[in-house]
């Protein structure tokens, strides 16, 4: 069956359709502006047994682990609330033996996705890590965490990581058209690679915009429509994290999460309120406004600082000039057809 032209749907439908128990799920965003509402929806739907990929886990990884969705984690950075005295859901799960984790460097993690994005089976990474415990201590990937090969050109020992092709990427961007041309700007990180390496892509965005907006700024498109399965319009979809051009990090709301995350019970209470009791982002925002007022959101709303537009225009967009003459041959269509007839060029 032909795919529908418009891929716009609700978060509930997108996660329900494309994320399955046991999947390899990658959070496309990293450190900045995460796909908070898509993450919450995964938790609300009680997805189980996920292998989660995250470049730098922040609160998104914490809540997915605390929500019992994740068996295995591939990452480079564990979020920890409150220093030595604090805690983290990842740490608690590791201590409880309910989570396995494979540690990589930022570069190695990104290289796995770049390899996957391009269809390669492995990628060369920086060999210094070979002397470290990153190389020596291995978890569920075992021998396939890294392999060492001999460079055929120099004879040098080269460190490699295997390609990653997660089943699904969830990612939040600034804007998309209804077809799924997803535009993202700011710190590019590993966002495009995470999405393009994956078999299915769910995009949430602050705004669904007209196709014409996309066509006049194709350099901002990081995921072309033909790769995208679902487009979910979620204003404030990354809150309490930030989206460049839309809103800043909500420091107060983030601190609220941070304090809660120091203990398992604290995080559970936080999730009861902000994830489970809020059936969608609107409910989450209603709760936020009822507690803190709308000033909190107004204070972090971005003021405009537009990039200079790039001119994608051409001298003309038709072979026919203003007098309806073809630009090279200087004849009208009627004259051209007459010439075809006279010269015996026509069949049929």
């Amino acid at each position, binding site marked *: 069956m032909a*795919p529908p032209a418009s891929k716009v749907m609700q978060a509930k439908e997108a996660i329900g359709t494309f994320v399955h128990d046991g999947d390899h799920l990658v959070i496309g965003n990293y450190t900045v502006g995460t796909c908070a509402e898509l993450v919450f929806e995964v938790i609300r739907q009680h997805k189980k047994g996920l292998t989660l990929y995250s470049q730098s886990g922040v609160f998104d990884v914490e809540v997915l682990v605390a929500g019992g969705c994740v068996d295995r984690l591939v990452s480079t950075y564990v979020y920890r609330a409150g220093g030595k005295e604090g805690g983290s859901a990842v740490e608690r799960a590791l201590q409880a033996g309910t989570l396995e984790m494979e540690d990589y460097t930022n570069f190695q993690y990104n290289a796995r996705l770049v390899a996957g994005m391009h269809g390669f089976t492995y990628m060369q990474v920086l060999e210094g890590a070979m002397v470290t415990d990153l190389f020596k201590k291995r978890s569920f990937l075992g021998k396939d965490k890294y392999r060492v090969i001999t460079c055929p050109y120099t004879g040098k020992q080269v460190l490699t990581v295997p390609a990653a092709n997660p089943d699904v990427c969830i990612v939040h961007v600034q804007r998309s058209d209804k*077809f799924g041309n997803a535009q993202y700007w700011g710190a590019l990180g590993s966002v495009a690679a995470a999405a393009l390496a994956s078999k299915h892509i769910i995009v949430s965005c602050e705004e669904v915009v007209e196709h014409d907006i996309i066509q006049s700024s*194709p350099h901002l*498109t990081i*995921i072309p429509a033909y790769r995208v399965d679902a487009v979910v319009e979620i204003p404030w979809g990354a809150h309490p994290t930030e989206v460049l051009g839309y809103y800043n990090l909500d420091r107060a709301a983030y601190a609220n999460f941070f304090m809660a995350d120091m203990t398992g019970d604290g995080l559970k209470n936080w999730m009861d309120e902000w994830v489970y009791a809020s059936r969608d982002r609107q409910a989450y925002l209603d709760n936020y406004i009822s507690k803190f007022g709308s000033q909190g959101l107004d204070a972090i709303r971005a003021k405009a600082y537009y990039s200079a537009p790039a001119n994608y*225009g051409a001298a003309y967009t038709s*072979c026919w000039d203003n007098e309806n003459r073809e630009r090279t*041959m*200087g004849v009208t269509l009627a004259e051209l057809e007459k010439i075809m007839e006279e010269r015996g060029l026509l*069949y049929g």
Partner: protein
Amino acid sequence: MAKRYTLDELLIITVAREIHDHDRVILGVGLPTTAGAMAKALHAPHATLMMESGIIDFEPLVPPNHIADANACRGFSSATDLFSMFTMTYRGFVDVCFLGVAQIDKFGNINTTVIGDYYKPKLRLPGSGGACDFLSYAKHTILTMRGGEFVQKLDYFTSPGYLEGGDSRDKSGLFPIGSGPSMLLTTKGVFRFDPVTKELCLAQVHPGVSLDMVKKDIPWDLKVAQDLTVTPAPKDEEIDFIRRFAPTEAVGRKMMYELGMINALRKMQERAK
């Protein structure tokens, strides 16, 4: 009465019909882009048209001058790089691509590099460009040959078709199973590939072309389809589209140069007045 058409229009429209709705298509300059533009406008509105330079999802408004000609469209949906265009093909995201042919053998292997000895060429042709990698990994490749030749042995093997025929392409382990050239269009007819032996098989002749006229170009005993047909005539709306979009291609290169010269002279004379 149905509209009458030029040979060039027939060729363009015949390959345009190989593009289906929702296909992801890599287009080259000339006939393929015009075919792609027609398909998108008339029967494949959801096709994603792309050029290997990194232009994704464009709607051509005039025929492009080269494969990086963003002037030929009013914007496009996604700008990427050449490397990613090829790796997306490698990963199986490209349904159809188009390649021009200088020499072709019985099993659809292609030469676009040289005529004569490689080191002392008689004719040095462009080379691979995108051809080798696209013919390797696109799901289907449409081959077009207007000035080229059928040969027993290629002077240079640029791009892999069905290798030695039969299942040799699939068995090599180098290519996606089932990939390869799906059609060859010439000025005389349309060839497909035998599903078992993978040799070229004449499927259609263009109006006014006899079987002998096709056979005389081919240095082996040509396989001919049991149900050999005449290439269907274009529809009026297809002809109208081609003439509007690419009038210079509708009349063919020779006539374009002739009329173009006359036009250039006329403009010079007007200026002299």
